[in-house]
C-alpha cells in the first residue's frame, strides 16, 4: 500500500468515525446527567434531512449544519418534555422518538431524494496540508472534524473542571440529593438532553453534507444506535469516545475496502461488521469490568420532585 493510499484510508476512517463520535459525545453528556435517550437515531436522521434541505436551499453547508443542529435540538426538546416534564419512561420515549424521527425525516426529505450537492469545504493550509502522510489528516479535514474534536475537548473540560459540569454529574449520580440541595435537577437534565440533541443533529448533518453529500431516507442506518453503544464502550469518558469512534470507523472502512477487494466473502457479512462489532465490543467490555461500574448511578431513572 503506497503512502498516498494509506493516508486516504486514514482520512476515510476519520470521516466515517466523525458522526459516531459527535453523536456519542452528545449522548454521553445527557447520560452523565442521568438521562438515557434512545432517540439518538431519530434525532440524527432528522439532522441529516433538515441539514441537507437547508444546505441545498441556501447553498451554504454552514447553514445546513446549523439547521441540522436545530432539528436535533427540537427533537431533543420533545424528548425532554416527555421524560423530564412528564416523567415518562425514558426507554419508551426514546424508542418513540426514533420511530417518529425516521418517519418524519422521510416525509420532510421526500422532495430532496436524489438531489446532489458539493461536499463540505476542507481546510487548506499552504505547505502544511501538502505534508506527506499527515498533511491532509491534520490540516486538510472539513470543518465538522475540527468542530468535533473541539467539542470533545470542551465537553471533557466542562465535565471534569467546571462547577456546572460538577452539578451535572451530581444530578446524574443522585437527583434526589441534588434536589434537596436546591440544584435545578430538571433544568440541568433538560439542557444536557438539548446538548445531546444538538450533537446528534450535527452528526446527522455531517452524514448528508460531508460523508455522502446527498440525502436518502434511512441513511443513518443504525449509526445512532452504535453511538449509544459507544457511550457504554467509552465508560462515559469523553476522550474514550474518540478512541471508540475511530475503532468503529476503522471497522466500517475496512469492511468497505474488503468488499471492494472482493475477498470472496459475502457482501452482506461485510455490511454486518459494524453491528457485529458493536455486540462484540459490548460483550468484551462487560466481561472485562465490574458490571456498569462506570455508569452514572441514576442513569435512566425518571425524577419527580418529592413532597
Amino acid at each position, binding site marked *: 500500500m503506497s503512502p498516498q493510499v494509506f493516508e486516504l484510508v486514514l482520512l476515510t476512517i476519520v470521516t466515517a468515525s466523525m458522526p459516531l463520535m459527535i453523536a456519542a459525545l452528545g449522548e454521553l453528556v445527557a447520560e452523565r446527567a442521568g438521562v438515557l435517550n434512545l432517540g439518538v437515531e431519530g434525532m440524527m436522521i432528522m439532522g441529516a434531512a433538515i441539514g441537507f434541505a437547508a444546505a441545498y436551499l441556501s447553498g451554504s453547508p454552514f447553514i445546513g449544519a446549523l439547521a441540522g443542529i436545530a432539528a436535533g435540538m427540537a427533537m431533543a426538546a420533545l424528548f425532554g418534555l416527555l421524560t423530564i416534564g412528564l416523567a415518562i419512561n425514558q426507554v419508551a420515549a426514546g424508542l418513540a422518538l426514533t*420511530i*417518529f424521527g425516521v*418517519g418524519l425525516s422521510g416525509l420532510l426529505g421526500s422532495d430532496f431524494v436524489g438531489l446532489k450537492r458539493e461536499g463540505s469545504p476542507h481546510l487548506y493550509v499552504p505547505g502544511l496540508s501538502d505534508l506527506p502522510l499527515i498533511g491532509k489528516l491534520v490540516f486538510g479535514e472539513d470543518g465538522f472534524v475540527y468542530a468535533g474534536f473541539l467539542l470533545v475537548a470542551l465537553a471533557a473540560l466542562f465535565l471534569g473542571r467546571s462547577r456546572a459540569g460538577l452539578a451535572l454529574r451530581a444530578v446524574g449520580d443522585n437527583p434526589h440529593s441534588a434536589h434537596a440541595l436546591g440544584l435545578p435537577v430538571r433544568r440541568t437534565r433538560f439542557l444536557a438532553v438539548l446538548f445531546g440533541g444538538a450533537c446528534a443533529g450535527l452528526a446527522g448533518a455531517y452524514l448528508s453534507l460531508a460523508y455522502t453529500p446527498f440525502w436518502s431516507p434511512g441513511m443513518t442506518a443504525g449509526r445512532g444506535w452504535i453511538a449509544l453503544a459507544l457511550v457504554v464502550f467509552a465508560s462515559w469518558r469523553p476522550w474514550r469516545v474518540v478512541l471508540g469512534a475511530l475503532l468503529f470507523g476503522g471497522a466500517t472502512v475496512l469492511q468497505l475496502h474488503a468488499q471492494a477487494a472482493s475477498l470472496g466473502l459475502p457482501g452482506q457479512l461485510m455490511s454486518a461488521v459494524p453491528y457485529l462489532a458493536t455486540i462484540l465490543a459490548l460483550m468484551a467490555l462487560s466481561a472485562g469490568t465490574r458490571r456498569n461500574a462506570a455508569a452514572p448511578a441514576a442513569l435512566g431513572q425518571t425524577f419527580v420532585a418529592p413532597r
Partner: protein
Amino acid sequence: MRIDLEPRAGRSLALDIGAPAGALAFAILLGGIVVWLLGKSPAQAFMVYFVQPLMEGWSLQEVAVKACPLVLIAVGLSFCYRANVWNIGAEGQFVIGGLCGGWLGVVTHGGAGQGAIGGWWIVPAMLLLGALGGALYAMLPALLRVWLGVSEILTSLMLVYIAELGLDYLVRGALRDPKGFNFPQSVTFDDAARLPFLAEGERLHAGVALALLAVAAAAFVFARSRFGFEVRLVGEAPRAARFAGFSDARLTIAVFAISGALAGLAGICEVSGQIGQLVPTISPGYGFTAIIVAFLGRLSPFGILLAGLVLALTYIGGEAAQVALKLPNDMTRAFQGILLMCVLMADAAARYKIRLVSGSGA
C-alpha cells in the same frame, strides 16, 4: 414555566380506557395538521385512512390480515415490557422465524418429502420452526444480558440488521430459485406449505386465528397464573420479586423466549400465509410498529388486539392514500411515531395530575 406532577390516588377504568382513546384522537388531529401542511385535504385523508378501509368486506379482511403479525408480536412484547425487559429486536426475530419456517417451504417445493405420508405435516412443522427460530434468535440478547450484563436494548436492535442481512444473503444465494432468472427470491411454496384460509375464497388465513389464540392465552396467563404474577412483579418491583423468590435471570430468558417465539410465528405466518415464498424483505417494519401496538394497548392483551387493528388500519389506509392522495408512504410512519408519543403522554396524564406552573424552578 414548569410542569408539576402530582400522583393520582388510584387508577380509574375511565382513565384506563379514555387515555389511549384520547391519545388516538389527538394523534389523528396532529396527523391532519401534517397532511394540511403538505397541501392535502385532512378530511379526505381521514376518510381514506380510517373510514374507507372499514366500509368494504375485503378491506376489512385485509386489515385483519395486517393486524395478525402486529398483534402476535405485540402480545409477546407485552411480556417483555411488563417485566422491564426491553426487547426491541422483534423485527429480527420475525425475520429469522420467517426464514427458518420458509426454509422448509423451499425444501419441500415440488412435492419433495411429501411422498408416502403426504404434505399435512408441512405447515405445522413450518410454524414450529418459525417459533423456534425466533425464540432461539431472541436467546442471544437474553443470554448476553443474563451472563454478561450487556444491555439487551442495543444487542437486540443490532441483531435486527444482522438478521435482515442474513435473509438477504440467503435469498440471493443458497435459497434462490435456480429457475428464477437470478431474481433474489426463492421458489414459490407448494400449496401444502401455505397456511390454509379460514374460509373458502376469503383472505383470512389461519394466522389470524393464532393471533386471537395468543391474545386469549396471554390474558389468562396475566390474570391467573403465577408466571403472569412473576412477570408483573419483576417489572413493578424487581427487589420485591427477588424477595418473593423469583429469579430475574430465568424470567428474562422466559419473556425473551415468549416474545421471540411469537415474533417468529408472526414471521412464518406472513411468509407462508401472505407472501408464499422468501424474498429479501419480508416485513414493512412490523417488529417496530408492534412496539407502538404494545404501548397503545397498554400492554394488556385485549388492548393490544384493538391497537393492532388500529395500526393495521394505518397501513391499509396509507397504501390507499398513496394512490388516492399522492401522500408519501412515510406519512404512515410519521403518524405512527406521533401516535406513540401521544400514547405515552396520555399514560402520564393517567398517572399524574399535570399542572403548568408559571415561574422557574427545578
